C-alpha cells in the first residue's frame, strides 16, 4: 500500500509537532510548512495526497493559501482540510468557501484526525 503524503501547514510549532507525531505513527509521510506561502512552495515541487492547514498564519493565511491551491489547475482535486476550533464557525465557512474540502476541529483527537483524513482521500 502506498504511503499517503500529508502536507501540514501551521505557524504553531506545537500543532505541527503534534500533527507530525500523530500522522507519522499512523503511517503517513509528513511534510511541513509554516505558512501558506511555504505551503505553496512545497506544492510546486512535491505531490501530496492531502493538505491540512491552519487559517491564521503570517505571510499568507490559510484562506489565501487554499484559494491559490485551487487556482492551480492540477490541485483542484487535492483534498484540503482546515484546522479550526469549535468556536471558529466563520473561519470554517470561509475556508470551505475558498475551496476547503473539510475540517479538523482543534484540539484534535488522534483517531478522529486519522478518520477525517480517510474520509477525504482514496
Amino acid at each position: 500500500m502506498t504511503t499517503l503524503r500529508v502536507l501540514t501547514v501551521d505557524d504553531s510549532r506545537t500543532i505541527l509537532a503534534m500533527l507530525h507525531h500523530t500522522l507519522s505513527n499512523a503511517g503517513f509521510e509528513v511534510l511541513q510548512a509554516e505558512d501558506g506561502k511555504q505551503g505553496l512552495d512545497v506544492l510546486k515541487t512535491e505531490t501530496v495526497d492531502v493538505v491540512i492547514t491552519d487559517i491564521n498564519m503570517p505571510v499568507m493565511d490559510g484562506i489565501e493559501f487554499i484559494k491559490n491551491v485551487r487556482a492551480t489547475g492540477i490541485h483542484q482535486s487535492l483534498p484540503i482540510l482546515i484546522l479550526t476550533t469549535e468556536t471558529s464557525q466563520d473561519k470554517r465557512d470561509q475556508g470551505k468557501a475558498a475551496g476547503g474540502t473539510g475540517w479538523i476541529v482543534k484540539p484534535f483527537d488522534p483517531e478522529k484526525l486519522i478518520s477525517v483524513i480517510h474520509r477525504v482521500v482514496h
Partner: protein
Amino acid sequence: MSDLDDFKATYFDECSELLTELEEQFAAIEAGERDADRLNAVFRAIHSIKGGAGAFGFSALVGFAHAYETLLDYVRDGRIEMSDDVVALCIRANDIVADHVKAAQTGEALPADYGMDEKGRFDALARGDAAPGDEDGEPLDEFDIDFTPVMVNLDAPEAPAVAAEGEALADDAFEAAPMQIEPGHWEVRFTPHRALYARANDPLLLFRELAALGEMHVRPVLEEIPPLSDFEPFAVYCSWEITMISPSLTEAMIREVFEFVEGDCDIAVAQLGSDATTFEVSPAPVPVMPEPAPAASDEPDPADLLALADDEVASLLDFTADADVAAETQFAPEPEPAPVSAQDSFEEPPTLSFAELAETIQPSPVAKPPAPVAAVTPLRAAAPSGEGEESGGNRSVGVQSIRVDLDKVDRVVNMVGELVITQSMLTQQMDETLRARYTELVRGLEVLAQTTRGLQDSVMAIRAQPVKSVFFAHAAPGARAGEQDRQEDQARDHRREYRNRQDGDRAAQRSPDAYDPQLGRSRHRDPGKAPRARQAGDGHDPAFGRAGGRQYPHHRRGRWRRHQPGEGAATGARQGCGCAGCESH
C-alpha cells in the same frame, strides 16, 4: 519524558516566544503604530496560545484567550477601534495570559476569578460593537447555491400526517412512504452540486463511509442527463438514491457522513419500512431541468454510458449486496469535476452546450480535453529529491532550521563528551603489544576516534542560541520599533568582537597536548595536518569558530546555564545569555 511532555515543553517554549512578540508588538502599537500587520500578528499570537492550550486542556487559559482573541478579531476587522484604552486593556491582558501560561506550566492554581474583570470588559466591548448574533459567522453569499435543505422526517408515528405531507410533496420521490416504519431502514437521496466537486469532495468516498455503517444499496438517478447536444460539460446531472439497512443506524450517523458537503448538495434522509424494492415503487425522481429532453432513440442511453458494472460497484464500495438488488443497482461515476479557475468563488462560469460549441468551433474537428491531467505525472517525476526526500520521515521542505529544547541539546552534548572521554581512554589503553596483536581492533578504534570527533564538532556547532532577543529585550520599549536593523548590526559587531577575542585566546592556548575538559579531548593537532575544512551548510560558521569556549563562565563544563526568571525579558522567556557565544544562525 512522554510524548505529551515533549509537546508541552514545545508549547511552553512557543508561548514564551509568542508572549515576547506580543510585548514587542504592543510596544509599537502603544507608540501609535496600529497597522493591520501588527494587529494580525497579535491576533495570531493569542490564537496560537489558545490553540495549544486547548490541546492540553488548560481551560482557564483557553477561556481567557478566547475572549481576548475575539476582541482582537473585532479590532482587526474594524468593528472595534484600537483606542488607547483598548491598548491598555490588551497590555494588561498580555500579563494575564502570561500568568495563565506560567500557572499551566508550573501547575499552580490561579484564583478562579483571575482576569475575569478584563474578560468581562472584552465581552462587553465585543457585545457593544457587534451586531447581535453576528458572532456566528458570515453567510456564504457568494457560494450559496439556490438550495433549500429538505428535511424529510418520517419518524412521526401518525400515519395521516405522513400522508398529508406526502400529498404536499406529490412530486417527491419519497412521497410513497410505506405505512409501517421500520427502525434501521433508511432511504437517502443525494444530489451533489458543482461546488461539492470543486472542493475536492467525492461521492465515492461518501458512499464508502456510508457502507461502513451497514448494508447499503445504491441506485444512480440518471434521468436528468440531457441529450448529448444539450449536455453541459461541467454541469452535474447525476444524483443517487441510497438504501441503508442497519438496526443501529440513526439519521445523525448518516448526516455526519455528509457533514463536509452540507450546502454543497441536496440531501434528504428518510426512515422507511419497506423492503429493498422501495426504489422500484418510487416514481421517477423529479427532474431538475425545466424540460428534461428524452433521449433520442438513435442516441445511446446516457445511463448505459455512465453506469458501472455491478461488480465494479461492489468492489469499490466493498460491501456484499443482495444479488437481486445488485442486479438493479447501478452506480454512475461522478460527473465531471468542475474545474474552478476563479479564486474567489464558484459561481457558474459561462456554459456552452455541445450545440453551441459546435457552432462556435466548427473548424476544429477535435475538441481538446479540458483538464491536462497528464501534467501531474511529469511534475512529480521532476520533483527534486532534497534532503528531506532521503529522510523519508519528517520532510520540512522550505524550512531550513528546527528548534530544539535547550535541555535536550545539553544532554546530547554531555553524552558526546562522555563518549569522547571513553574513546580517549580506550585508545590510551592500547600499548604496543596490544596494537601488534589486535590490528583489527586498532583500526576500529581509529574509525571510532574519527567518528567521535566529527560527532563532537557537529554537536558543538549546534549548541548555541540566537542573541537577537536579548538585545531586543534590553532596548527601551519606545525605542524598539523600527530599530531591528540597528540591533542586528549591534549583534554583528558583538559577534565580530567575540571572534577576534576568541582567535587571540585560541592562539594563546595553543600548546601541545593541552587537554580541554570541555571539549573532552586534546587540543593538540598534528602539525602536518591542516585543519579539517567544513562543509558549507553544516551549521557551523567557520569564521566564528566553536561556541562554548572558556571565555564565558556560564558555558563551562559543556553546559549552558539556564537564565533565571526576570533575567531577560519581563515575560521570563528563555533568552540567550547576551554574549556572542550564544549567537549562531
